[in-house]
């Protein structure tokens, strides 16, 4: 996801060109093979052009590598306009000579073929473009069009082979796109020429939901993720979702962060949660889950940390108002900028997109603490096991980045811990349960710690008091049933 934090390839030797594409550098252990061509193939509309263009844009913006985009299909104007709607300002990069789009219009004029030929004209134009901006990265989109135009495939094959050698000799990191063939990776067997790295993209519609998948078919000399990874094309370009955790070596911080409630810190060995761990706060409706989450967020802000709060059931205004009644001042943290509140209601149909948007935001803001209130939707998607898997990996991802995550889960009013909690339990380091109990005619909130890894926490049940003075805990009188 975040290339700054890329996992180093344990096998040295292969130099990588980071793509800057969220997630892709993680599953490729640092990017595409530098100075070599990579084949990106897939069916129409699978996102090849977007991925290829983003590779150049990020290269130009972040890695000081100018890029040449050779388009055999679309005109430069069309590309600039399409990418503007996707949030990319190609014109600015073109102006700054960090990007050049060369349109080799194969449909220009009626074409007849007779006798041998070479693609020297293409080489000359490539060379011209590369020299003009000092390009280190080149995209050829799409090679399919070249084959569709020229019939003498023998001449063509020899020339394509020569083209890839030529690019390698120049040390250019190239992305070559091709159409998926029936039974083969590509229709014209490009995989024969490009053996270093091959990515396959897929776009399918499943139960009216658009699903994009990315797979690394091969990557010579490098470790890479083997799964079929969901990816999305969103406002900030391509995101490859998962969030791999190829290595289970999360750092374990000894640092503690306050829960925002003095009494609860005390129950957690006197100091609160461990930084970089995952906390679950579960309970029935009205037991004070969101209040506990808000107290945690406010405490983070007070430590001058950035906190990102995802509210899935309440609007920002509603949440801020409710918390104000408990003396938890979210508004001033919002104004000050240390708190970011995102209130959206995920629908079951858009969960994948929703997760992607969350990941992109986390990646952009790089918060120290994240709250998700509640996560029930993500885990309750019974017929969408992939969503659950993705969500689990998101949790794992945050942990690997030492981001402290607080999850709020609603338990059913029938009281028995539901399967949501069981599923999530193994991922959770600290589990705080809230409950409500009738005492005479009054209801009383109770709080206890189901578990908290790595610390000697209190086994008591205490009362959670919510008043205009804030949240506090109170010991329950001994002997009283709890």
């Amino acid at each position, binding site marked *: 996801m975040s290339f700054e934090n890329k996992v180093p390839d344990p096998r040295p030797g292969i130099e990588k060109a980071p793509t800057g594409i969220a997630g892709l550098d993680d599953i490729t252990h640092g990017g595409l093979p530098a100075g070599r061509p990579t084949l990106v193939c897939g069916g129409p509309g699978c996102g090849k052009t977007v991925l290829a263009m983003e590779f150049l844009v990020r290269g130009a913006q972040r890695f000081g590598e100018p890029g040449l985009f050779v388009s055999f299909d679309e005109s430069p104007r069309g590309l600039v306009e399409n990418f503007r709607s996707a949030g990319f300002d190609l014109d600015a990069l073109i102006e700054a000579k960090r990007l050049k789009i060369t349109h080799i219009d194969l449909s*220009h*004029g009626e074409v*007849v073929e*007779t*006798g041998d*030929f*070479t693609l020297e*004209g293409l080489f000359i*134009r490539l060379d011209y473009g590369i020299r003009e901006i000092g390009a280190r990265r080149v995209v050829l989109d799409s090679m399919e069009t070249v084959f569709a135009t020229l019939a003498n495939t023998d001449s063509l094959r020899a020339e394509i082979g020569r083209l890839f050698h030529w690019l390698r000799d120049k040390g250019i990191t190239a992305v070559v796109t091709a159409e998926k063939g029936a039974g083969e990776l590509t229709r014209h067997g490009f995989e024969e020429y490009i053996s270093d790295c091959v990515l396959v993209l897929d776009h399918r519609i499943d139960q009216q939901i658009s699903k994009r998948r990315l797979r690394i078919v091969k990557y010579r000399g490098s470790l890479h993720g083997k799964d079929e990874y969901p990816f999305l094309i969103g406002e900030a370009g391509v995101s490859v979702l998962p969030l791999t955790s190829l290595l289970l070596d999360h750092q374990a911080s000894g640092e503690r962060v306050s829960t925002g409630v003095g009494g609860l810190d005390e129950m957690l060995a006197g100091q609160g949660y461990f930084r970089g761990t995952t906390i679950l706060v579960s309970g029935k409706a009205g037991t004070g889950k969101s209040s506990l989450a808000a107290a945690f967020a406010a405490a983070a802000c007070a430590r001058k940390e950035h906190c990102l709060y995802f509210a899935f059931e309440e609007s920002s205004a509603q949440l801020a108002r409710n918390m104000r009644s408990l003396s938890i001042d979210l508004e001033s943290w919002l104004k000050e900028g240390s708190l970011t509140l995102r209130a959206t209601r995920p629908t079951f149909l858009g969960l994948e997109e929703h997760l992607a948007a969350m990941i992109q935001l986390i990646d952009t803001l790089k918060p120290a603490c994240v709250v998700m209130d509640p996560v029930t939707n993500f885990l309750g998607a019974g017929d969408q096991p992939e969503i659950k898997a993705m969500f689990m990996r998101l949790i794992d991802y945050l942990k690997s980045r030492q981001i402290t995550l607080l999850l709020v889960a609603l338990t059913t009013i029938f009281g028995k811990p539901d399967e949501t909690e069981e599923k999530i339990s193994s991922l959770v380091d600290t589990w705080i349960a809230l409950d409500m109990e009738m005492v005479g005619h009054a209801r009383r909130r109770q709080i206890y710690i189901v578990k908290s890894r790595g610390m000697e926490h209190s086994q008591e049940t205490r009362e959670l008091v919510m008043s205009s003075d804030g949240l506090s805990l109170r010991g329950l009188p001994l002997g009283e049933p709890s």
Partner: protein
Amino acid sequence: MTGDTPDKKWILRLYIAGITPAAERALTNIKTICALHLKDQYSLQVIDLLESPAFAEGDQIFAVPTLVRQLPKPLRKIIGDLSNTEKVVVGLDIRTGT
């Protein structure tokens, strides 16, 4: 290099990249065809992309040799060493009697 002549009915350009055997064959072939079918009605310009790479963009040249029929319209391209005379004649749309 023979310059474009505005009073000619046929304006042809042959794009090559260096004097390769295929380029030489293409030039010989097109000269023969023109002499036979177009007599004084044509001008032929040879453009070596190694010397003038910028020219490749205008006529969207990617393969060499490429013969471009600039006039009469519409623009037509014949890629290759022009070894198949019949294909070239058909490709250029040279009808006997014109």
